Each structure stands twice: as structure tokens, then as C-alpha cells.
């Protein structure tokens, strides 16, 4: 063999070895799949914000906000809602002690309880129920985000905040837990509202009381069997709403939330609470004239002091001046004896008071000397509160009972309380004062004529 042939053989063998080596390890070639980056052209649609302008209105009243049940909310986040109330002339007050609930509700037109963490006690529930039964409006707000005991009160009004939360993957404000709602019952609460966005809301049962309804794609994490959910339900004057976030400042800008918050405020201040003697002295809006019989001047002055102490405008009007034109429209408190026909006037008929042949009211015969009557006569233009007794001591006793909200045992109805107790006269009554409520002297309840 010559050299050239050797070289060729050498090269051929080397290549053969390389090929064999490659075949030992490699049986194919990697063909990468088509690799494209996923679509990043994403947008999250947003519902158009409804134009809203708060309407200012004349009003005078108070909305009481619950702070007595470890309520888990920060009022700083609710400035929009509270300013809506303010723009309607109402002020917001808080009650931090459940024992003061009745006192505070006496003055309030509406009661708002947001995310109560502590349960309402039986007595508190009775007080709130009584408030609602007289036309006071109640707004209960809970949020499934945090634990709450709102049902302790809601169930007293046949409403129930259900567990879980509502979600919608299609119709939402940027997150599946922020569903939109656009189906509403025909109610002034939704005037001007096209769409609402709630932020982690739960459903309120029963569905029949619902006034906001979910769309087809909205589901509940806890209730799979139902097709429709309602996060807002209304039963008489009690509104249960399961979402507090939509009222908060950063979230109330969405859709028609601001309009709804304003409508809610309007609904609260539109309460037409029927006055009750239990609400004394908050029975009147505006100025009140205290008209008295001469022998009750001291009582009348003390009563004025009491009303002044509560921030109520009161004037003591001398006998004979109370019926003047200037006072025609003013509410009146009449402090007099049973026989004072010129002061009691036609109100006697309104409360079923007769003095002849014997003293009786609503058909109940009373002892002339030891009895006292507190009566509220509601008129179209003015309300009249009557304190009737023969003796100053009895008069002081009945006013003290009224002031200390201990009339329950003496009430024939919301507008009439009757005291018939010689003991009440015998015991030295507490002076009428608005400063420190004191235990009133014992008095004998009168059996109801009903």
C-alpha cells in the first residue's frame, strides 16, 4: 500500500470511529417546539363611574351609629357616607355602651350597626325592635371578610347574613370577589343607580326580602344549590346589607356606589318615627313652649333646665301667653292639674280624660290626689305633651319617671302613662334634673284598659 492509501484509510477509520461513537450516544436530533411568549395584551374592563353630585337638604335629626358591640370598622373610611348624612342636615352620633342604647335611640331617627363583633343582648334587641316598630330605620351592615355577630340582631327582624361570599368571574370590578349587581327591586334606594360593585359581599336571607339580585354568573362559596343571591334585603324598616367595603372611600367611586350610598343616607333620614313617651324629652323637633299652671312654676322651670341640658330649645311661657299667635306653631309641654280646662283644652278629649263625676282616663278611674298622667297628643302642626297632677310632689315624680325612661310599667300605650300611687306621693320625690338620672320613687302601675 502506498502512503496515500494509508492516509485515506486512516481518515476513513477515524471518521468511522467518530460515527460509531456518535451512534452510541445519539439517535436523533432535538427539534424544539414553537415557543412563543403568552399573550400579554390584557385589559381588565371597568364599569363607567356614574356621575354623582350630592344634594344638600334641610334636615334636623340624628343617626345613631353602633360602637357598643366591638364594631369592626374605621369611621375614617366612611367619610363619604357620613358626609351624605351631614348634607341632609343630620348628625352622626355613636353609642359605645349598650346600656345607653335606649337613651340614645330616643333621640335618633335611624340606627346603623356595622360589623358588630359582639352579639346584641336580649334587652338591647328588645330596645331596637321597639325602635323599629315605631318607624325608626335600622341599617345592619356585615362583611364576610371578618367574623361578626350581626345575626344576633338581624334574626330578630327575620333577616340572616349567610356564610361564604359571592363571586363572579365574568361580571366584576377587577376581581372575582368584586361582583357587579344590576338587578334591583323597584325601590327609591336605587333611584339613579344603574350598577353596583360590591367588594366581598355575602348573601342575605330570605331571598324573598332581597332588593338587589345577583346575575346569572354570580355564585356563593358556601351555597351551591341556589341560583340567585341577594346581598341587600329589606324587611319593613330594617335593611341588611352584606358588604361594608363598597361604602368605604376608595371603593365607593365605582359604578353607582356613591349614588347608592347617598340613597341609603336619604332612606335613613326619611324615617318617620312615631313619637313615644319613652323618647322623652326627644319628642319635638324645634322650639317647645312650657306652659304651666301657677302652682307648677318651679316644676316648669326645672323642666326647662332639664331640656336645656339636653340641648333642646325651650321657653317657659306664662299662663295665658301659650296660646298666642307667636306660639301657635310651637310644640308645647303643658304642666298643670286635672281641672285646668283652659290649658288642657281639647287635649282632654284626645286622651279620654274626664274629671266629672270622678277622675278617669281611658275609662280607668283614678285617685285624684295621688295620681299623675303623662300624655302625648300628636297634632298636624304641633305636638303637645301633658304632665297632669294635682300635687307638685306627684308632678315631680312623673317627670322624673319620664326623664329616667322608667315609664314602661305605667304606659297604657305609647302616648299615655298613668301613675296611681299614694306611695309615690308619700315618698319624697327626686328633684327634676337633667344632670344625673336617679332611681325614681316606686309607683303603682295602673292595669291597662285594653
Amino acid at each position, binding site marked *: *500500500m502506498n502512503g496515500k492509501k*494509508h492516509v485515506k*484509510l*486512516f*481518515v*476513513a*477509520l*477515524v*471518521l*468511522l*470511529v*467518530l460515527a460509531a*461513537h*456518535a451512534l*452510541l*450516544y*445519539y*439517535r*436523533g*436530533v*432535538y427539534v*424544539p*417546539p414553537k*415557543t*412563543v*411568549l*403568552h*399573550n*400579554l395584551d*390584557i*385589559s*381588565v374592563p*371597568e364599569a363607567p363611574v356614574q356621575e354623582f353630585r350630592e344634594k344638600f337638604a334641610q334636615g334636623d335629626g340624628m343617626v345613631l351609629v353602633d360602637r357598643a358591640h366591638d364594631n369592626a370598622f374605621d369611621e375614617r373610611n366612611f367619610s363619604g357616607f357620613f358626609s351624605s348624612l351631614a348634607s341632609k342636615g343630620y348628625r352622626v352620633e355613636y353609642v359605645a355602651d349598650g346600656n345607653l342604647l335606649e337613651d340614645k335611640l330616643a333621640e335618633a331617627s335611624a340606627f346603623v350597626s356595622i360589623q358588630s363583633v359582639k352579639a346584641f343582648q336580649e334587652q338591647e334587641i328588645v330596645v331596637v325592635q321597639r325602635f323599629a316598630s315605631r318607624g325608626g330605620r335600622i341599617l345592619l351592615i356585615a362583611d364576610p371578610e371578618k367574623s361578626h355577630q350581626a345575626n344576633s340582631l338581624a334574626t330578630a327582624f327575620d333577616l340572616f347574613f349567610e356564610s361564604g361570599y359571592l363571586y363572579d*368571574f365574568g361580571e366584576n*370590578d*377587577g*376581581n*372575582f370577589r*368584586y361582583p357587579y349587581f344590576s338587578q334591583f327591586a323597584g325601590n327609591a334606594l336605587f333611584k339613579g343607580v344603574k350598577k353596583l360593585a360590591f367588594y366581598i359581599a355575602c348573601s342575605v336571607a330570605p331571598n324573598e326580602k332581597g332588593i338587589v339580585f345577583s346575575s346569572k354568573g354570580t355564585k356563593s362559596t358556601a351555597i351551591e344549590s341556589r341560583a340567585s343571591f341577594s346581598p341587600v334585603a329589606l324587611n319593613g324598616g330594617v335593611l341588611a346589607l352584606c358588604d361594608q367595603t363598597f361604602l368605604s372611600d*376608595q*371603593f365607593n*367611586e*365605582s359604578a353607582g356606589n356613591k349614588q347608592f350610598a347617598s340613597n341609603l343616607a336619604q332612606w335613613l333620614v326619611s324615617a318617620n318615627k312615631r313619637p313615644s313617651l319613652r323618647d322623652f324629652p326627644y319628642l319635638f323637633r324645634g322650639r317647645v313652649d312650657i306652659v304651666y299652671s301657677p302652682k307648677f312654676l318651679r316644676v316648669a322651670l326645672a323642666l326647662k333646665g332639664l331640656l336645656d341640658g339636653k340641648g333642646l330649645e325651650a321657653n317657659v311661657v306664662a299662663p295665658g301667653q301659650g296660646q298666642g299667635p307667636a306660639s301657635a306653631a310651637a310644640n308645647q309641654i303643658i304642666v298643670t292639674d286635672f281641672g285646668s280646662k283652659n290649658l288642657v283644652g281639647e287635649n282632654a278629649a284626645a286622651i279620654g280624660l274626664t274629671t266629672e263625676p270622678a277622675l278617669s282616663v281611658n275609662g280607668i278611674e283614678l285617685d285624684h290626689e295621688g295620681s299623675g298622667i303623662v300624655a302625648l297628643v300628636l297634632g298636624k302642626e304641633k305636638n303637645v305633651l301633658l304632665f297632669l297632677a294635682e300635687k307638685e310632689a306627684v308632678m315631680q315624680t312623673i317627670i322624673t319617671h319620664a326623664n329616667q325612661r322608667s315609664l314602661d310599667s305605667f304606659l297604657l300605650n305609647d302616648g299615655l302613662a298613668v301613675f296611681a300611687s299614694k306611695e309615690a306621693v308619700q315618698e319624697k320625690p327626686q328633684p327634676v334634673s337633667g344632670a344625673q338620672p336617679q332611681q325614681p320613687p316606686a309607683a303603682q302601675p295602673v292595669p291597662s284598659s285594653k
Partner: protein
Amino acid sequence: MENSWEPVKRFWRRHSLPLTMALALAFGLVLASYLVPQPVIGTLDLKAEINSAFAEDFSEQVRFARENPEIKAVVVRVNSPGGEAAASEDLYLSLLELRKAKPVVVEVEQIAASGAYYASVAANYVVAKPSSDIGGVGVISSLPEPEEVGENKIITGPFKGQRTGKRHYARQVELIKESFLNAVVEQRQGRLKLPKEVIAEAQVYKGMEAVKYGLVDEIGSGIRALEKAAELAGIVHYRVRDVSEWMGKKKQGVQVVLFVDENQLSPKTNTVPANYFLYVEHEG
């Protein structure tokens, strides 16, 4: 005088053919070991809660695996509940780049949830155990709190210390989720059997369910993952090398955080929250 090379020449003339062949074989073998080395399947570990430090280290290993000619395929061993959003996206993008050059197979051990699953969908093939936890396609975050106004701090815009408003932030989180969702749909195209809306529910599935729904490709062991990687690369008689050790990195005792209490998620600053692709365990 006889040439001193004459015996050698005579020997060559007599035995030139076998000698040429022997030399060629020997040279060929030596040359082959350089030119055609035994292929290697590199292994990478994704066994931690994903954060930026981990992602940086992992990306370095991915780059090494891509540039090393001996490594013909990569198996990523995953056992992670996910972690920070951007770090998880970094892993996904790195593996996507690697896949263009070399086959990538993911072997799921106990869990590949959220951000770890995000990274996994970049692989050519995913192998899991029957009881592996897979999925959790979603984002977890917390809304930014308004910044407290301080007289001694000056900022140039209302969102400088807060990033953005709560509602806008929620929409941003939704964008991140949609991007994650699109990545799963795009990379698992043709295999995914669940509608996008269902995946968006962020459920975590067991391996056997995940195969049925197309979230992973096969139930199999680590050996099966290597075989699949070799098959995709077209190699046999391969070696398996841990990329981290090959790079001379000290193998750290990896602390695998499989479930994370959401209370452990803390924002990076007082007011600006971080986004997580993370499977969190809620307390009872």
C-alpha cells in the same frame, strides 16, 4: 552503513495495514471523546419558596445548562409552593429560553403549585406523582394601605409611598393573574382539557387529576423524567449530572417550604404590598 531506521521501515512495510488501523482507531477514540462526548442530562432543583435570590441562582444554572455543549437535556425537579410573582415569572422565562435550545422535562415531586407550576409550564413535558399537588393558578396579594402623612417626609406624588389606589391595585393583580393564566393556556396548548375559567379558580389538583385535566403529561418517577428528556433529546447512554454541583456551587441544604401560612406573607415595605404566586395554607 545501514540506515538505523531501516528495521522500522521494514516493520512498517510488513505491518502497515494493521498499524494504520490501530492508530486510526486509537486516534478516533481520543478524538471522539472530545468531539462527541457522552451526553449529559443536567438536573436542576426547584425546591424552595421562590424569591428573587433563588430565581437569580436558578437562572444562572439555566444559563450554564444552555451553554454547556455536553448537556443535551435538562430535568427540573420541582417541589415548591411557588413564591414571589416576579421571581416565578423569571423562572418561567428562563426555562422558556432553555426549551428553545434543549428539551426540558419537569419532574414534580410533592408539589408544583402557583409560581412553581408557572415555571413548570415552560417545560416540554411534565411528569408527576399520583399524589403530587399541582395547579393553584392565581395571585395572592394585599391591598396597599394609604400612607400616613408625615411632616418630615416629602414625596412628589400621592401614590409615591403607596404605589396606587386600592381599586387600581386590585386590577393590576387581575392583570398578573390573567398573564399567568395565558401562560398556562399557551404553553399547555393542545393538552389542556380544563376551560380557562375553571383554571382561574386556582384549585390545586392531585397528580392523577392533573393528568386527566392536561395540567401535566404523565404519571411517572424521576427515572421516567430522565428517559423522557433523553427521548426528546435523541440520546442514549447518557450521564446525569447535577448542574449546581457541576458549576462548583456548594449544594445547600434546601429547606422546602411546602405550605405557607398567609400571615407569613409580609409586604416589602410598610405600605407597598408584594404579589405572590403562592399556595398558602389557611388555618382551619
